[in-house]
């Protein structure tokens, strides 16, 4: 696979005011899972979407390809190659999924079919989207496996998923995702199921993909260590909203939203036998019964009376840095 030269300021995809409402099967209640989220993906850059379970990070990622339950309602715009993906036909989306925008999921054992060989599964997108057959197909398969760091690719093509380790399978999922040279790669917790050493080398591989092939990478994760390692930009989500977004160093070194700050201080920082960790009081809110005003106010140690009445809109707190908090100020 040949490296590509690209313009780092070129926009690959733009999500504008994205909102997703899901129907809860238990009681039919409408859940505002994603609420007015906007972000831009650039070629060769990685955006990390971070937050805790139920904050809407995976739903946001899935909505880029409209991989949502039938009962879901999406509003807003997803601008990609001059069209709005939310207005595109199902047929058009099928031509885009796996070709221009591809995805890597958390568990490679679930993503791969146990009954088909690695070769079969790698051939599928190459046949459907790239029209490759015969020797050209095989050459491309071998090239892809080599690119994700798998030794003896010819042998591996004839093997089944159960014959390989989790780390190796996730590399194969990466090869399938990269098979048609996509513009955008969405990875949803891609290393959560891997051992620490496999995790670090997989992240390095994804980062290399982004930088070498001008791919726009979306990394959905709850792990701040993963964000620090691969992301250029960060979007912090809480209760369906983007509470803070900005360049990775600003988010880590000068977080403006109290939730981001609390999240960063509550993780063990490598100090040996530290006494107590600062915690965030309470639980994340039930999305069907969001509090009025700021969703984080009930758990926020800096909350004022105003916070539980009115929600703040995004404010500019630095260069490309935004936070949704009354108390956040520009440096």
């Amino acid at each position, binding site marked *: 696979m040949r490296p590509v030269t690209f313009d780092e300021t070129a926009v690959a995809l733009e999500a504008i005011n994205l909102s997703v409402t899901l129907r809860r099967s238990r009681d039919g209640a409408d859940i505002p899972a994603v609420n007015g989220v906007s972000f831009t993906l650039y070629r060769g850059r990685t955006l990390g979407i971070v937050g*805790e*379970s139920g904050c809407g990070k995976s739903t946001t990622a899935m909505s880029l390809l409209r991989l949502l339950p039938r009962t879901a309602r999406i509003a807003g715009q997803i601008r990609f190659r001059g069209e709005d993906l939310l207005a595109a036909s199902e047929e058009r989306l099928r031509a885009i999924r796996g070709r221009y925008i591809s995805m890597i999921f958390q568990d490679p054992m679930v993503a791969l079919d146990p009954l088909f060989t690695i070769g079969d599964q790698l051939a599928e997108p190459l046949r459907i989207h790239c029209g490759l057959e015969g020797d050209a197909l095989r050459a491309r398969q071998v090239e892809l496996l080599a690119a994700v760091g798998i030794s003896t690719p010819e042998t591996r093509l004839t093997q089944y998923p159960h014959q390989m*380790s*989790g780390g190796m399978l996730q590399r194969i999922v990466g090869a399938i995702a990269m098979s048609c040279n996509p513009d955008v790669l969405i990875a949803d917790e891609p290393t959560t199921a891997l*051992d*620490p*050493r496999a*995790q*670090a*080398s997989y*992240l*390095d591989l994804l980062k290399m993909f982004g930088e070498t092939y001008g791919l726009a990478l979306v990394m959905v994760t*709850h*792990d*701040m*260590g*993963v*964000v*620090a*390692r691969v*992301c250029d930009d960060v979007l912090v989500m809480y209760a369906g909203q983007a509470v803070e977004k900005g360049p*990775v*160093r600003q988010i*880590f070194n000068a977080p403006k939203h109290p939730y981001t700050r*609390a*999240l*960063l201080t*509550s*993780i*063990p*920082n*490598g*100090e*040996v*036998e*530290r*006494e*107590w*960790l*600062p*915690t*965030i009081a309470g*639980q*994340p809110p039930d999305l069907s019964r969001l509090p009025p005003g700021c969703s984080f106010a009930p758990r926020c140690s800096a909350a004022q009376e105003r916070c539980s009445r009115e929600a703040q809109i995004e404010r500019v707190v630095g260069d490309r840095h935004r936070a949704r908090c009354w108390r956040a100020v520009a440096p």
Partner: protein
Amino acid sequence: MTLPVLEVSGLAKHYPVGSPWFHRGERSVVRAVDGISFSIAEGETFGLIGESGCGKTTTVKMLLGLEPSTAGRILFQGEEVQNADAATLRQYRAQIQTVFQDPYSSLSPRMRVEEIIAEPLITDGRLSAADRRDRVAELLEVVGLPKEAATRFPHEFSGGQRQRIAIARSLSQRPRLLILDEPVSALDVSIRAQVLNLLRDLQQRLGLSYLLISHDFDVVAHMCRRIAVMYLGRIVETGPTKIVRDRPSHPYSKALFSAVLAPDPDAVHRHIRLPGVPPSPIDPPSGCRFRTRCPLAQPLCAEVEPQLLAGAGGALAACHFTERIDSM
């Protein structure tokens, strides 16, 4: 120094594989755990780390008496456990309890919280129903759950609260040692800190000892003063956490800790990649088991198995060429 709560020496578990019909007399064995020794002091947290398949889980099974050991001894408060009579064994099993990774699968969805927490006490049979109720109420308070939680079902609780229920259950028989198997991996970041603080608080209040097993090295460093690193059924390095992590003497520990993902975008990464694939525990390499993947390996490593020897800062490492560690 006080008597250690748990002392393990030369513990091993070998599983025979293959059909006995065709391999009579020469069946292969999987050396899942192959002679490990460590001890845990009263009130201490000891960390056991290593990758999938290194033998951590088999070690835990032997400690809990769920798997008989092939060789070695387990001493609990100075008493031998393996050949103990039924009564002693029963007492031992009450004293050593486990908290598992996933509070969604470790709690029965059909039982109320009070039944879950009281079940070990019912089996034990020493407390009356009224005393059991009091004990459940006390335990709920200890782990920071409201009294009303007793009559509810697990599905009514969040992950963090469920882990508190699991911790309450593990404490019901007043154990001395808790085995924490990835206790916070399934929890959200903001909830992790609450559970880690609770574990620390319980340790101080009840004088508990912990054996912590985790992939998250920052959690291990946060909780443990001493750790042991396992590779293919053996402990390759053990000692004070700070020394083993920051100045490792064994090439495997060094490679393992080089993979830590620090929550700092300016951290310098020097991830040491190891060549090859992990060897099978059925026929582990001769001499040092790590030699097939070790960047420092020499001919000697294939011939002589290195023993755990004192290295820098009070750590023990099993490597012939530990003085060359800086060249990695």
